[in-house]
């Protein structure tokens, strides 16, 4: 089996699962569907590992650089000129790394679902949707063409909609699915327009060609793209910023983040897959994919940095006040993605300055493991206590020792405690930020402390604190739930030791990670202090959290209500768009436009009423008209029309 076939098979296997289960529908049992989907996913996962091995270790290109190569492509929808959607497969360090991450996490989620979803209805549909999602995500990361990216981008959105709304009889789930789709669709509008701008600037939809043309200062396209276009801003800036809007939507960045917490209405394994490790990092992936372009455009990079760091801080603040375990994790995800984005924002192309790029993707890599682990642990806990609220948990460490251990590992990893995975990636990010701008660094540092605080707040509230009054029924979940937890915990422990910079960097050349260990002191100490505070406040029931909340007053209330973003959006849609735009449009249509048509009809009718009065039924009147007409005609013919 050559590489093209094996890479092509990776997305095709989940697709086969989707088609098979989708067509078979209810004629297969849930268990059979689960096993089938899991086996296909295992195949894809194994293939991804083989492909990664070949790519990174066997087929290393000339020199030491990993060059992107389009290993297969075909014309899907040709447009005029040099444009067209060519679907294809792009192999480069980022896409290969994403292949491994996506298939691996997806496999873990499939296995976990075997136990977690056991006994649910519509399981074939569930696994079919998981397959569709995995396929779309893989198609997205392998795409060499901007519009192919957009195609799979939309498909990812659809499968996310289907999975969030899996419990479709719950109105909350339906509303959340709808919200997720519409908010990301709104962002996709930006993405689409951005694609149009970039494609016509570089006269190509092919990402490689586009990058070449627009970064080459000698090329005519470069000159055209960097002259001011609309509103005095260059076309390139417009294009890149709008594309980033699309990315920010999928990655739940401020102010488009409002769908992510609600999306937790979906089944928990789905959250682990979509809202932790894969789909939500699509924005990071997108910026990384177009990074050579972003790196020559300071304005759009500034936007990325600002949005990333602000979202990181905001989400961390909100996470400290929430009480729903999945929502805390959702905000934590948003915060961590903000990390990845500002890390990209502070990077530049090539050499030392590209450290942020590597760090960002490294964090994406490690985050995938520990965040999906956190979600799966949350799933195991919810499975046991049948509630999402942390107040219904408490004291679970004895009853669920394995989950407890795994959760602790993940918490340590996300808090950046050495030698767990998160430490390495986070430390690199902070390093890169420090080199670029102190304000970004400060934001990152504060966020890092807050992260440790809210994660351990969660940890202590669930596993220590006051035991809830749950009777001691079944203990841990099934084996199929515990195995993925164990594997992911091991990954969270070890993934940081991978010399990531050797494989993934902005220009394909190995980058050396920073080795300045003294630099790591500040974040680690801060995290440790935050953990200590969390321990004092939440390990046992104490009045401190309450007092602190009162002391903080408005800030606490605002954070608890998520800074009123939902209310703002609701206000805009329900109070402005629907009544002030939609309703007038419908009204105008019914009354003005249609009124015009009906008015014409009414006028015609009025005139015909008037005319028909002449048809009086009086024979003699008719005769009079007749004679009058004859006389008039005679007069005209004799005296007027004489030629």
């Amino acid at each position, binding site marked *: 089996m050559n590489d093209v076939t094996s890479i092509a098979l990776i997305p095709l296997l989940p697709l086969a699962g989707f088609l098979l289960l989708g067509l078979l529908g209810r004629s297969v049992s849930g268990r059979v569907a689960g096993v089938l989907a899991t086996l296909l996913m295992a195949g894809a996962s194994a293939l991804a590992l083989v492909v990664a091995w070949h790519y990174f270790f066997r087929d290393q290109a000339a020199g030491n650089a990993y060059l992107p190569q389009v290993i297969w492509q075909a014309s899907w929808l040709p447009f005029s000129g040099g444009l067209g959607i060519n679907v294809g497969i792009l192999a480069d360090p980022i896409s290969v790394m994403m292949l491994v991450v996506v298939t691996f996490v997806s496999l873990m989620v499939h296995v976990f679902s075997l136990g977690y979803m056991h006994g649910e209805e519509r399981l074939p549909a569930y696994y079919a949707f998981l397959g569709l999602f995995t396929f779309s995500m893989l198609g997205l990361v392998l795409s060499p063409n901007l519009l192919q990216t957009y195609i799979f981008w939309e498909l990812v959105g659809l499968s996310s909609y289907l999975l969030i709304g899996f419990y479709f009889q719950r109105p909350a789930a339906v509303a959340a699915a709808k919200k997720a789709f519409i908010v990301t669709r709104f962002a996709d509008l930006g993405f689409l327009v951005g694609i149009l701008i970039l494609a016509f600037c570089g006269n190509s939809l092919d990402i490689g060609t586009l990058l070449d043309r627009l970064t080459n200062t000698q090329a005519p396209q470069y000159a055209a793209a960097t002259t001011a276009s609309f509103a005095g801003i260059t076309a390139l800036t417009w294009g890149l910023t709008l594309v980033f809007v699309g990315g920010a939507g999928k990655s739940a960045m401020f102010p488009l983040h409002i769908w992510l917490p609600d999306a937790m209405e979906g089944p928990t394994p789905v959250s682990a897959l979509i809202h932790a490790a894969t789909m939500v990092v699509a924005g990071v992936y997108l910026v990384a994919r177009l990074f050579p372009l972003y790196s020559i455009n300071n304005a759009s990079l500034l936007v990325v940095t600002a949005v990333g760091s602000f979202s990181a801080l905001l989400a961390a603040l909100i996470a400290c006040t929430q009480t729903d375990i999945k929502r805390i994790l959702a905000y934590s995800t948003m915060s961590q993605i903000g990390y990845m984005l500002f890390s990209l924002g502070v990077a530049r192309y090539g050499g030392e300055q590209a450290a942020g790029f590597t760090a960002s993707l490294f964090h994406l890599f490690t985050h995938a493991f520990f965040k999906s682990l956190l979600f799966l642990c949350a799933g195991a806990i919810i499975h046991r206590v049948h509630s999402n609220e942390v107040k219904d948990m408490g004291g679970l460490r004895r009853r669920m020792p394995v989950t407890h251990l795994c959760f602790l590992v993940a918490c340590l990893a996300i808090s950046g405690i050495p030698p767990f995975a998160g430490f390495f990636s986070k430390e690199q990010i902070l390093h890169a930020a420090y080199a670029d701008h102190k304000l970004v660094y400060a934001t990152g540092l504060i966020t890092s402390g807050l992260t440790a605080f809210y994660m351990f707040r969660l940890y202590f509230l669930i596993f220590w604190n006051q035991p809830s009054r749950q009777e001691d029924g079944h203990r841990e979940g099934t084996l199929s739930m515990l195995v993925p937890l164990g594997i992911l915990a091991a990954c969270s422990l070890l993934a940081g030791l991978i010399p990531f910079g050797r494989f993934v960097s902005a220009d394909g050349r190995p980058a050396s990670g920073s080795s300045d260990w003294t630099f790591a002191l500040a974040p680690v100490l801060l995290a440790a202090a935050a953990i200590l505070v969390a321990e004092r406040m939440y390990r046992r029931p104490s009045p401190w959290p309450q007092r602190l909340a009162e002391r903080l007053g408005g800030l606490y209330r605002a954070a608890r209500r998520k800074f009123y973003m939902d209310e703002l959006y609701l206000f805009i849609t329900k109070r402005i768009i629907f009544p002030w735009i939609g309703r007038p449009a419908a009204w105008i249509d019914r009354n003005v436009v249609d009124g015009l048509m009906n008015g014409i009809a009414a006028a015609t009718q009025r005139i015909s009423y008037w005319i028909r009065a002449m*048809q*009086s*039924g*009086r*024979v*003699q009147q008719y*005769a009079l008209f007749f*004679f009058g007409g004859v006389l008039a005609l005679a007069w005209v013919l004799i005296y007027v029309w004489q030629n």
Partner: protein
Amino acid sequence: MIPLSHILAVSTALFFIGVYGLLTRRNLITLLMSVELILNSVNINFVAFNKYLFPERLDGLFFTLFIIAIAAAEAAVAIAIVINLYRSHGSIDVEDSRDLKY
């Protein structure tokens, strides 16, 4: 020989008497009679023109005969209509049969 203008004067008089009757009388039978007057005025014209202008041809006479035949047929149909109207409306006043309108 009587000049043509005299004959035309008679036929014109006849014509306008007919028109006057057609426009002012109420009785349908009278209306019918007025129509006959008009037709006859036309007949006179045909005959007179034929005689004075083209004495060697007979077209005018033929037309007159044709009109007389048509007038007979018309009278038959019209009287049938009038009888039916009388049966349905109980009147042969033209003002009473105004149903054929919008």
